[in-house]
C-alpha cells in the first residue's frame, strides 16, 4: 500500500515537472480528429484517447536526453535541391486518370458543394 502511494505520488510529481508536454484528453483528441478529417464515434474517441495517452507516456523516454545542441534530421541524405531542364514530356493520360475518380464530368473531377460549409 505504501509502495503504491509512493508510486502514485512520483507519477503525479513527474507529470507536474513535464509541463511542456500537455496531457492528452478527449477534447484534444477530438480536435486532432477534426484536423485529420476523421469522424470518430464516441467509442473510437475513448479508445483513441486511452491508446494515444499510453503511447505518448512511453515516448517520454526521450525527455531525459539532452537535445539542446542536436541538429534535427528530417531525412537521411545530405541532398540539395536541383532543377531539371524545363522540357515538356508526356503526362498521364487524362481519360485513364479520370476513370479512377468517384465522380467526373466534362474532363474534370466532380465534388460536392464547397461553399456553405457546416464547419
Amino acid at each position, binding site marked *: 500500500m505504501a509502495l503504491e502511494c509512493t508510486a502514485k505520488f512520483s507519477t503525479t510529481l513527474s507529470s507536474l515537472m513535464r509541463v*511542456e*508536454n*500537455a496531457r*492528452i484528453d478527449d477534447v*484534444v*483528441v477530438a480536435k*486532432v*480528429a477534426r*484536423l*485529420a*478529417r*476523421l*469522424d*470518430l464515434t464516441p467509442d*473510437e474517441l475513448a479508445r*483513441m484517447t486511452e*491508446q*494515444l495517452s*499510453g*503511447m*505518448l507516456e*512511453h*515516448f517520454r*523516454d*526521450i525527455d531525459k*536526453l539532452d*537535445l539542446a545542441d*542536436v*541538429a*534535427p*534530421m*528530417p*531525412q*537521411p*541524405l545530405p*541532398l540539395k535541391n536541383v532543377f*531539371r531542364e524545363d522540357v515538356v514530356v508526356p503526362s*498521364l*493520360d487524362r481519360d*485513364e*486518370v479520370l*476513370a*479512377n*475518380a*468517384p*465522380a467526373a464530368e466534362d474532363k474534370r*473531377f466532380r*465534388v*460536392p*458543394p*464547397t461553399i*456553405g*460549409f*457546416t*464547419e
Partner: protein
Amino acid sequence: MSFPTVAQLARDIREGKVTASAVLEEHLKRVDERESEIHAFNLVTAENARAAAVEVDRAVQAGKPLGPLAGVPIALKDNMCTRGIETTCSSKILEGWKPPYDATVVTKLREAGAVIVGKTNLDEFAMGSSTENSAFGPTRNPLDTSRVPGGSSGGSAAAVAAGFAAASLGSDTGGSIRQPAALCGLVGVKPTYGVVSRYGLVAFASSLDQIGPFTHTVEDAALVMESIAGHDPMDSTSLLQPAPSLLSVLDQGVQGMRIGRVVDMPEGSEPDVLERLDAAFAALKERGAAIVDVKLPSLQFGLTAYYLVAPAEASSNLARYDGVRYGMRVDAPDLNAMYAATRSQGFGAEVKRRIMLGTYALSAGYYDAYYGKALKVRRLIADDFAKAYQSCDVVLTPTSPSVAFPFGDKTADPLAMYLCDVFTIPTNLAGHAAMSVPFGTGAHSLPVGVQVLAPALGEATMFRVAAELERAR
C-alpha cells in the same frame, strides 16, 4: 519444403531445360493448392503472367538476348503501382483503383524478363508487423498457419515461403521486409535509402520507405537487387549512381572483416533468438572475422523516434485520400463532410491511430515536444552508427525479438506490436542498409533471422557477410 531458386530457374529457362510457361504453371499450381489457406495475394494476375511467360519462351526459341530474371515468377506487394491492374494497399479506401502508370521497380522487373504473378497482401498502407491489419483479412505463415507471417509485407514473404513465386518485392519503412523474412525463413533486404526508386510505391513515410526483395537465398537477393536498383529521374531522392555489383562479392568470405556486437542492445529478445545470434558470431569468427564490441546508446530511443516520425509523415501522405481523385467516396452534402465520411469509413483502426498520432505530433503547440525532438533523436542514432562503423564493417543483431507469433497475440496492445520493430527501425531512421538472413531455428522449430546492418551504400559488404552466414548455416 524447398523450392527452386531464382538463379536456378533463370539458368534452366535460359538453357532451354524448362520453359517459362512450365515454370509459371508449377507456381500457379501451388497457388491453387494452398492460397485459400495462406491468403498471400490480394490479386493473382495469372492471364498477364501466362502472356509474359509465352513472350519469354518465344525469345528463348528465337535466341534473343534475355534479361537476368527471364521467366522467373515474382510477386509484388500491393502498394506498388501496376498500370491498369488494381492496387489497393490492402485498404478499402483504394479498393478498385487502377493506377495509370507502373512503378519504376515494376518496369525494371519486366525489363529483366520477370513474370509478375500477382499483388500480395499487407498491413493496410504497410502499417503493422503481422499483416493482421489488412482490410481483406490476414495472411497465414506457410510454415505454421496458426501464426502470423510478420508484416507489413507478410503477403510477399508468404508467397515466396509457400512457393507461389520464386521471389517477391516488399517495402520496408521500419522493418516491413526484414521482420517477415525472418519469420518466414527467407532472405529479406532493406537497401540504403535512395538505392531503389520509390516512384510508384504508394507513400507511407517518405524519408524512411525503401523497396527490397524477398528470396530463398542470398544469391537470389543479389540478382533481384541488381535488377531493381539504380538511379531514377522520377524519384527525387534516388541516388545518382548505378546499381551496386553484388553477385561478384558473394564468394569473397569474411576473412579480416570486423563484425560489430552491440554491447548495449535493447532488451526483450527471446533466449532462442539470442542463442542463434551468438551462433552467428561464432560462425563468422571461425571463418576469419574479428568480433568487435560497439556501443549504440541511442538505439533504445529508436522506437520513440520512429513512432513519431513515421506517423507524422504518414498523416501528411495519407491526406491525399479524400474521395476526390481515386478510390472510394462516401457521399455527403458538402465537401468537408464528404472528406471526413470517406476517410472514416475507408481507413482501418491502425491507420486512423497513426494518422491521429502523426497529426498530434505535428500540431501547433506539440510540434517541438514530439516531432521536433524525434528528429533530433534520429540524428543521435545516425551519429551513434557513424561512430560504431569507425571500428567495424557491419553490425549483427536479431531481426525480430521472437519467432513468428500466434494470431491475436499482439493485436490488443498497439505498443506490443510496435516493439516487434525495435531492431529494424534504427536502419530506416539512419537511411542505412540492412538484411535478414535465416540462421537456424528457435522455439517451435520456427526460423530465426539474423540481421546484418551496414552503413549507407554498404550493400556489397553486407552481402559478403550474409553469404558467409548462409554457408555456415
